[in-house]
């Protein structure tokens, strides 16, 4: 049985795995490059302001712009360290 499985597993369609992985990464990268040029600078300045009050790391802040037809939403996510919340 094991022996047969070995041959079966060799028949994995690796091309479809490649396609799935590409679709995910390409969508992610396209989203990032559709963001306006000022976003990294904006994120950096917001980070500096927050840091005046709370020590946070760069990964704890994310700024995103979601553009729809008639509404754009600037989404700001800041994860605060546990001890500071209280």
């Amino acid at each position, binding site marked *: 049985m094991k022996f047969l499985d070995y041959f079966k597993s060799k*028949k994995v369609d690796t*091309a479809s795995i*490649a*396609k799935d992985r*590409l*679709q995910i990464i390409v969508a992610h*990268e*396209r989203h990032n*490059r559709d963001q306006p040029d000022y976003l990294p600078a904006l994120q950096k300045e917001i980070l500096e302001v927050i840091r005046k009050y709370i020590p946070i790391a760069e990964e704890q802040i994310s700024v995103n712009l979601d553009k729809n037809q008639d509404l754009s939403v600037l989404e700001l996510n800041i994860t605060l360290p546990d001890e500071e919340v209280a």
Partner: protein
Amino acid sequence: MAKIIVVTSGKGGVGKTTTSAAIGTGLALKGKKTAIIDFDVGLRNLDLVMNCERRVVYDFVNVINEEATLNQALIKDKRTEGLFILPASQTRDKDALTQEGVQRVLNELAETFDYIVCDSPAGIEKGAHMAMYFADVAIIVTNPEVSSVRDSDRILGILQSKTMRAETGGEPIEEYLLLTRYSPERVEKGEMLSVEDVEDILAIQLLGIIPESKTVLKASNQGVPVILDDESIAGQAYEDAVNRLLGEEVEHRFLTVAKKGFLKRMFGGNQ
């Protein structure tokens, strides 16, 4: 007005120079006066593929620096009427290509040529930017393989934002996918991304599919653009791509596994 075509990819070694030589030659064969420019400064190679490496006196950077005239630097192809090569410089100076300099050379070429084919270096550095900046048409050479497809998508992003047409709000660059080193056998076995897979992901118009073929290496060994080899299926696929570029509708070929007859299997077909 000349049409400026950039042959680009992001990833290295996918077949840009092979394609530039083939498409440039194909256009000249169709009666279009064509210049192929090697933008790969420091790593000149188009001269070898076109068999003019021993005739290089002046190069692209010499013309930009006004150390030579365009006419002195252009090499007239010995096989194909109406075809000229502008070789890359071997300098290691990364800033040898300036935007103003490149524009001046392209403008001067545009006065007398129908097509200008820019063979881009790999990567997304200065040389690649300069090769695509003034383009009207982009041929994105892609291999059916994950890193090549991803890099092609990045190049599309750059074409849509960091080129003259993008920056001045002009008509967008015409973008075409050229899938090269395609192996229908491996696609059939599920080992290689299919044309449809790559089209789904990149979502740009398909210019052609160039099969993996031993004749490509044979051609470059001899310095003959593969499009001049009538027996080569890669050469024929390039010819179809040139016709599509010129607006003809040509059906895609060499997409299915060629069933080899007994004799061919015994003695090997010369694809």
